[in-house]
């Protein structure tokens, strides 16, 4: 019928102080939003592991009994190195250092590939020791622990281990492929001090994958 004058004013006047948006450029926001969904994806895998382990502790072995902790600790070291080279590549292009960008990107790709390679070797060794993902094969003859001891753990151990670390490895592999694209673009001079969004985006993804590994290494290998 009638209306409050102040309501009317607020209704009629655009708010000049209002800034729409996150104050973050759209591609970066999109990458963050995508990473949130990755958090939930790893939650379903890691959460299932935590729950299965809690329900069946006898299926899992103490650290170092089945899994090779020193080897993976080295691998963790490499992944952390690749994170620092990635961030150095980003810092380089922020200062307009084009050569630095290319070199640090190349270093990141090489160290990332090394991580995947070592993981493949780890899988090969574990698989041949009889540590397999398929439940029916888990108790197959010949399966031995690291010290040549008896069968340790149960089928859920192999299943969860390969699923979680395998999907992490797949993420690293995808990261290496994307980094290679970024490097090719960098070689063509696509990034400048003023516009280096591609480098920042792949960096976010790469550090996220590193972050997931920090959690995986702790709960799969060490606890």
């Amino acid at each position, binding site marked *: 019928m009638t209306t409050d004058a102040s309501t009317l004013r607020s209704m009629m006047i655009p708010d000049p102080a209002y800034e729409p948006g996150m104050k973050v*450029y759209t591609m970066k926001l999109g990458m963050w939003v995508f990473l949130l969904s990755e958090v939930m994806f790893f939650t379903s895998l890691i959460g299932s592991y935590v729950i299965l382990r809690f329900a069946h502790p006898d299926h899992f072995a103490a650290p170092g009994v089945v899994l090779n902790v020193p080897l993976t600790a080295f691998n963790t070291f490499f992944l952390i190195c690749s994170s620092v080279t990635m961030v150095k590549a980003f810092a380089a292009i922020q200062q307009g250092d084009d050569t630095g960008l290319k070199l640090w990107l190349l270093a990141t790709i090489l160290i990332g590939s090394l991580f995947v390679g070592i993981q493949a070797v780890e899988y090969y060794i574990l698989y041949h020791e009889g540590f397999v993902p398929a439940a029916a094969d888990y108790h197959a003859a010949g399966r031995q622990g690291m010290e040549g001891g008896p069968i340790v753990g149960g089928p859920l151990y192999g299943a969860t281990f390969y699923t979680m670390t395998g999907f992490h490895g797949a993420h690293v592999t995808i990261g290496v492929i994307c980094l290679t694209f970024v490097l090719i673009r960098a070689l063509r001079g696509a990034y400048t001090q003023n*516009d280096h969004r591609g480098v920042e985006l792949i960096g976010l993804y790469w550090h996220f994958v590193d972050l997931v590994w920090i959690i995986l290494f702790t709960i799969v290998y*060490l606890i």
Partner: protein
Amino acid sequence: MTTDVQHSGHAEGEIHEAPYMLIFGALIVLTLAEVGYAFLSLPKFWLALGLIVMAFWKATLVALYYMHLRFEPKRLWVLALSPLPLVVILIVAVLTEF
């Protein structure tokens, strides 16, 4: 891919030279500490707690400095942390089952 010059200039108006190498050192030290701690003969609870605390700090350092969350607007913090309650709800609720 289009260039968006105004944008990057706006977002990276000043360059935050984060202490990248320092963080790197901290991550290495924490990793070594974790591996060492894991082989102490501690009760399972303390083992798990210590390791989770260290892993939490490592993850936080990566997010804050390498992912530059420290230099981002507060609203991005809210966005980035939003799934964490859901993670906790799922795991805690299902754990009470077993």
